[in-house]
């Protein structure tokens, strides 16, 4: 489903070139779940961005559902994301001007689907927010906001879900509830999951764990 070959990312800093990711290779099967863990600055988020096609590697290749992301331009990568990928972010990234239902409708509207509203309402009901459809982000708690974000991530039936510290901004109890929901939805939709987290308990719920240190893979329990 997803594979990376010798993936490197370097940036130019004030003290010269800084290597953030150093020849990382991995492969994830359809329906599998992978947790990427590591300390702050180990390159987790950068790897997630490259795997999801949000950024281009300095060298190496990424293939997502047969699409060579590193060789596609930004427009083509956007099309791949629209079709195949869902995202959950640490800081939710709901659009403040849209209510819960409209936020969830967004990926469907980007695809031009006519049943966007019904579908969004149904998924929001699935995550327990059936009565909060018309609430704006600022009227929702953190946990509720992340549930809206989960609904948005799954609403268009993506094959791959990328989650970046999905419980990082939530208290333990809410975080646990959100992660239960995430894995439940993942199972239900048979989605391939790639998750980045500090939280080892959350990471442990994934079938496979990959540990990064200074941009290199130091542990892979594949």
């Amino acid at each position: 489903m997803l594979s990376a070959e010798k993936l490197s990312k370097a940036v130019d800093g004030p003290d010269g070139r800084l290597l953030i990711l150093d020849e990382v290779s991995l492969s994830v099967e359809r329906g599998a779940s992978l947790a990427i863990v590591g300390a702050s600055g180990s390159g987790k988020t950068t790897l997630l961005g490259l795997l999801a096609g949000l950024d281009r590697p300095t060298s190496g290749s990424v293939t997502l559902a047969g699409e060579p992301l590193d060789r596609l331009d930004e427009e083509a990568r956007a099309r791949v994301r629209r079709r195949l990928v869902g995202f959950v972010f640490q800081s939710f990234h709901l659009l403040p001007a849209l209510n819960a239902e409209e936020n969830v409708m967004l990926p469907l509207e980007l695809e031009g689907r006519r049943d966007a509203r019904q579908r969004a309402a149904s998924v929001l009901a699935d995550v327990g927010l059936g009565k909060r459809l018309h609430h704006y982000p600022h009227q929702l708690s953190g946990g509720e906001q992340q549930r809206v974000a989960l609904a948005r991530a799954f609403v268009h039936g993506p094959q791959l879900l990328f989650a970046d510290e999905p419980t990082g901004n939530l208290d333990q109890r809410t975080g646990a509830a959100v992660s239960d929901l995430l894995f439940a939805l993942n199972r239900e939709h048979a989605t391939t999951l790639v998750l980045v987290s500090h939280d080892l308990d959350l990471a442990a719920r994934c079938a496979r764990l990959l540990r990064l240190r200074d941009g290199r893979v130091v542990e892979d329990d594949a």
Partner: protein
Amino acid sequence: MNPLVFAARSLRREFRHGELATLAAALVLAVAALTAVGTLASRVEGAILASATELLGGDLGVVARRTPLPESFSSKAAELGLSSSRSVEFSSVVFAGDKSQFSEVRSVDDSYPLRGALLVKDAAGIQRSAPAPASGQAYADRAVLNTLGRSVGDHLQIGGRDLQIMGEIVSAPGGPVFQFAPTVLMNTVDAEASGLLGTGSRASFRILVAGPLDAVGDYASWARANLPASARLITVAEAQANLRNSFERGENFLRLAALLAALLAGIAVALAAQRFARRKTEEVAVLRCLGASRNEIVLGLGFELLLLAVPACILGALLGLGMQEIAFVFARELLGATSGTVPLAPAGSAFVVGLAVLFGFALPPLMRLRDVEPMRVFRRDLQTRLRRFDALYLLPFAVGGLLVLLESGSTQLAGVLAAGLGAVAVATWIVTVIMLKGLRAISRRLPGALRFGLANLNRRRGLTLIQVGALALSLTALDLLAVIGPSLLDRWRADLPPDTPNYFVLNLQSDQRAEFDQRLQALGADNLSLLPLAAGKLVAINGKNVRPSDFEPDSRAGNFVEGEVRVSWSADLPPSNRVIDGRWPGAESKGAEVSVDKSWIDLFHLGLGDTITLRFAEQEITATVTSVREVDWDSFRVNFFMMLDQVHGESLPHSLISSFHLPADKALSDLSRAMPNLSLIDVNSILDRVRDIIGRVSAAVTWVLGFSLAAGILVLLAALAATAEERRFEIALLRTLGANSGQLNAAVLGEFAVLGLLAGLVAAAGAAGTGIALARNVFRMAEYAPPLLQLGLVALASAIIVMLAGLAGTRRIAGTPPMLVLRHGT
């Protein structure tokens, strides 16, 4: 994704949420201000034009020399549904008993005047509006009655016809504003019967038409194509050359007001558009992450703006039309105009300008959103890559420049304003950069909250530069409206002080001078000026003979060559004259020298060192052009296109011409009886007319300026409220850290006070400079000094207004629980 559908949805949602309200409000207000000022200016201009048609006596005239205009000129007017009136003007001697007076006689038909009113005084001295003189009747100027020793009701003779004097002329539309002999008005039937209009008469034949604007336009086109060789069109604009300057000044004032309103509107929309684009960055990153393509995003945002802008501009235009109607109710009294139809063109142009400004200023930042990295959803600090050069960034400048040019309708006004505002922008940038450096140096010594407020200025360096720039430009516009405009109007009114000469005397002989002076002194006359006058003909330029046929038929230059040229001389440069090139001949000169008015220099393509040959009876003088003068022709003083050096002038046969001011309650009948050879010209009615125009126009302009000012302040407040929104995150943070209201206010006040004072001072300096340039180059006023004290006070007031507006804008935010703000970031 269908960008249009997506845009419509986004618009609906964001509008409901209030996200777009600031931009929509700025746009509505901007278009409303522009529509209101533009429409009001256009209506005032219409009223000025109506006033000018009253002077002309019709909407359009055709005048022919020596030969009457063909009948087709009347029938065409009738065919187009226009009313028409024919008149003939000629010089003749008017007799009464043994007395005579050389006069300008105007014979008119029964439909005279088509526009304006003929005002006369009857035997009882009561002023009334009168119809055209019937056959056997006449009206005459007071000078004619005085010289002839006749009163209303008596008789006079012209060309053997006996006419009864039915009234003393107070004002008669359609005549030249300034003429060398007093007027008599009679019926054309009598003039034709008198034989004075026969072959060889030096009469000029005129037809005036009046009616709907379109028909007048059609008539003008037809007349132009069918003009006989000796005929020309007289439009309202050129009808009254002496008053043209007044009309032009009035128009320029209105354009200035409209232009400044447009500028303020543009700034408000630009600020709101920039803010809109900034706030969209996060959203675009999320959309990109969810798979929206660059083009879909740009198209979506573009459509969203369009869907927002069209109704906002329509609403603004409607609101503006309503606002101007209220203002016009008050202005109408001053203008003495009827309401007329409301012109819709200014509303249309405001609509287009609104769209142009919105897209001109919003597109570049929105197009930049194309480059937002999707990775930004993970890392907010990831800056959008800046392209080194993007032609798009020229768009706001292009739109701004076009706006100035279109709204000003005059390249000179546009040039001065663009240069002034450009200088303000550059100066603001330099001063702000220096100030930010200074603040950084001293901020450690400031108390906590204030330091935080001022540190914000440095933290948002780019935004600070934009905000101070926008503020300085808005305040410059406000300074121009509030201080410079009114002071220029005062300066204009002072052009005709109470002792402006109201009488001219021609034909005074040198040996009569002592008696003349004495009599005038006895009458209490003042502001007396006396200059010699010799009449000659222009025969050659640079040794080459000039003939009327060298020039376009009936051109100004041709007329000068064909007619008499009056010259004078003086040891000192006369008042209301200024040497702009070369040197004044003075009392002593080596060869024959001549000083020439700038308009003649241009007309005959002359330069310093060229020679002009003039013939006076048997005597010919070839003089070298040694100076170029700029003459204030509106000063009501005796002025000449050409002035010779004194030595050569004195050798010519000449009389004297004088101008002076006589108090209203004094009469010159004794003078004219004692010195019957004198030609007395009473210019009181012209003077009154000019004063009336200046008074009415300046009153109306004051209204328009005030209106623009009010609209400008509203726009500025809206813009400031929007910039205050930018501070919501900082304020929430301060609140969280336990800042009380006093500390919050200190932070905000400190920040806005610095912004306001800086912008206010640069604006005051900019407005003063722009005012001087406007006075000199646009309004043609010498010696204008901008009121610096007032400007200084306005700068101080601006700082206070900006502070209070900033405080008002942040107060609302300060009331929001900080948690809400912090949770959602900026």
